[in-house]
């Protein structure tokens, strides 16, 4: 627990952003983000500017920027209940250097969670069984037992997490993007977050010995397939048996 606290506190200082990087990030921010988040990242409310209201970004930290822009959620394509993930990593409107610059600019506005370091993301030695237990206690209610995602209210949904980059999984827990709550560094320790990532990544690679996974969402999906496809096939055969031969 002590290490977790130390990491969380040391993190903002660790991102040694240069003044030029911050300045480059500010330019990118003004061009790409300020129309919704305000010229000084103070946020724009719906009352001031219809259809382009965005929350303030002071204190959200570099991790939030890296997650939102790095997964293609921001810049937001259109206002709606959900900010869907964008194109695949590598086909984004910004490259990683630009994302880092914007992250450095937002981090310079106020203290917030930093982008996790490579060391924090090394989940090789993490405890897989504990990761599974933590995932089921904290994540599975929204993201499904196999990480395939699920519905929330009013058109919102928890996206599938199986194909997410480890850094984005970590950042999501750290920053609580959109509807997701924050899972702080001292209630789920960094090594426990690594265990969760290891569980997700291991689950994603599991084969399906029984054939079609059907979203791995269990008996409901399997039941629907049996009722519609299975009984449909039986009905077709029954009709064939009953039809008079020519």
């Amino acid at each position, binding site marked *: 627990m002590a290490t977790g606290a130390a990491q969380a506190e040391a993190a903002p200082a660790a991102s040694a952003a240069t003044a030029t990087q911050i300045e480059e990030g500010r330019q990118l921010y003004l061009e790409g983000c300020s129309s919704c988040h305000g010229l000084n990242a103070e946020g724009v409310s719906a009352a001031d500017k219809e259809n382009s209201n965005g929350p303030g970004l002071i204190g959200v930290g570099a991790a939030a920027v890296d997650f939102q822009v790095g997964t293609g959620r921001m810049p937001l394509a259109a206002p709606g209940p959900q900010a869907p993930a964008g194109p695949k990593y590598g086909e984004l409107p910004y490259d990683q250097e630009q994302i880092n610059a914007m992250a450095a600019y937002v981090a310079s506005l106020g203290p917030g969670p930093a982008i996790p370091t490579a060391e924090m993301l090394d989940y090789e030695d993490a405890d897989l069984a504990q990761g599974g237990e933590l995932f089921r206690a904290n994540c599975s209610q929204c993201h499904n037992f196999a990480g395939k995602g699920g519905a929330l*209210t009013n058109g*919102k949904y928890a996206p599938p997490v199986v194909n997410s980059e480890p850094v984005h999984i970590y950042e999501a827990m750290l920053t609580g993007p959109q509807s997701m*709550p*924050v899972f*702080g560094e001292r209630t789920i320790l960094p090594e426990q977050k690594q265990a969760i990532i290891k569980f997700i990544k291991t689950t994603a690679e599991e084969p399906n010995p029984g054939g079609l996974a059907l979203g791995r969402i269990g008996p409901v999906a399997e039941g629907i397939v049996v009722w519609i496809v299975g009984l449909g096939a039986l009905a077709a055969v029954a009709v064939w048996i009953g039809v008079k031969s020519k």
Partner: protein
Amino acid sequence: MSTDSKDLATTDGGAHGSVDIPHKPRRADTDIKAARRAERQVSALFLISALSTIGFVVAYVAFPSDEIITVPVIGPTNASNFFLGLALGVALFCIGAGAIHWAKKLMPDVEEVGARTPIGATPDETAAAAELFEEGADASGFVSRPIIRRSLLTALVLLPIPAVVLLRDLGPLPGTKLRETIWADGVRVVSDVSYLPIRLSDIPVGGMVSAVPENLPEVEEETGTLNARAKAAVIVVRMLPSEIRSQQNDDWSVDGVIAYSKICTHVGCPIGLYEQQTHHLLCPCHQSTFDLADSGNVVFGPAARQLPQLAIAVDEDGYLVARGDFAEPVGPSFWERG
């Protein structure tokens, strides 16, 4: 009697006109080539079935049980399962399909009316059966030997008593069990799974912790059941104090950190789908939605009551503690709840 019903069947059939449609022979009945073709098709289906059966044995030998292959549409799957299922499926299906094809194309194709036989027995048969029964009753001595009759009736009357006595095992009555949890004044609120105590500063605004009482592991060890967990689980969230519109008692939260029972008041599912922007908590079972910024009130779904709130405080070491048990029973309604 039997001739009547036969007549009825014939006239009935005639009345519906189904007999009036002239019988149309199948192609295989008139065309020898078509009949030969149908014969070949049926035998081909049977041969495919035979080959598939052999294929089943081959697949059993050929594929180790842990080999994974990628099949289009299905994705990565177990090779042995896939080919065993495929071979057996084809073998069984082709026998059935061949048999039906055979019946439809080549077996006799003549409509026949089957007359029903009367269901009841003849008066003679009924009388004979009654006579036989009486003869047997006399011979057994059921009437002439009253001691046997009465003792048998006594045995039969007493026989259901064990079933009534066993009903006692439905008890004992739950007493206050449904009204109490293991939360008590001063019990620390710890995170589930890792049982870490929680400081106020550990939960950022927008944060959520699935929490249980600190003494839960001991209680589970002692009782060997999950009953205590099923009642005591809570959700601890933090929002800006200004965002809390109402709560069940004004001083039950600390600095925006607020704790509610994790057990849905509808049928008792654990609820965890917390949307931090709206402060809504959604139950995955029947979509009951509770507003944690507004006393845990129901905003949608079949739940009839608000989520019970757990009064919390901070102890002298800075950790979150409960200030007592819930003020009302957690979870779904029950008969005596009131």
